């Protein structure tokens, strides 16, 4: 019997993926525009990119866990189509922000 369901874990980590992707792009713009933040990120791990990667990865895993266990452990309810739309549009938007920034803004 065909159905259309997806688990709370796929929804939670899918939303975390979308949010972390957008945050990834925002960090790019903020650190490149602000020397104090760039230098602060360099001081934390020795390289701004290492700090940047760690922030995004920790955010992804932490948010994924929190969103999966949200609403008292029931997680969020969402159709697969809507989740696909959120994930693909977030990844595309984040990609465009990053490419657009280095193409026109830097």
């Amino acid at each position, binding site marked *: *019997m*065909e*159905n*259309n*369901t*997806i*688990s709370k*874990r*796929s929804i939670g*980590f*899918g939303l975390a*993926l979308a949010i*972390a*992707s957008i945050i*990834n*792009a925002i960090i*790019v713009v903020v650190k490149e525009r602000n020397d104090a933040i760039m230098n602060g990120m360099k001081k934390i791990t*020795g*390289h701004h*990119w*290492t700090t*940047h*990667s760690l922030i*995004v*990865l920790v955010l*992804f895993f932490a948010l994924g866990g929190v969103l999966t266990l949200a609403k008292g452990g029931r997680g969020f309810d969402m*159709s*697969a*189509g809507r*989740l*696909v739309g959120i*994930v*693909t549009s977030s*990844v595309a938007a*984040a*990609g465009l922000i*990053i*490419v657009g920034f*280095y*193409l026109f803004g*830097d």
Partner: protein
Amino acid sequence: MVEVLLMTHVLFGVACMLAAVWLFVDVLQISDANIVRVRVVSWLAAAFMWVAFLAGGYWYVTFYKFDKAIILKGPWKFSHNMVMETKEHLVIMLLLLATYLPIAASEELASSKGARKLLLWVAALVALLALGMDGEGGIIAMGVKVGLLPK
């Protein structure tokens, strides 16, 4: 040693891309016969990407400054200013997407059309982004090469 590290990055990045394509095709033909293979390949794609990311990341943080200096003295400055700058940040999203593959593949794929749709989209994004990263890597290597050519 440096070259081995860089080739490890390229090799596992390409392996991740091929695994994502394999996954995409296998999900299109999903049945009880191939569902275990789909899940194994999703884990392999994620593992390949983590190896590629760690090898490339270590090389970038430790050794790229030498290549960068050559590129910025040569005629292909864009291969750092535009291509490497985008690559080093887009690859973080690629790592997230590849890490998400085993999560999406753990669904009841044979019975859920929605779960298959989700996995197909994520696998396609992984394959396309990995292909883009591969191309960007080629441009960066060419930026170093033209920077070393006699003027």
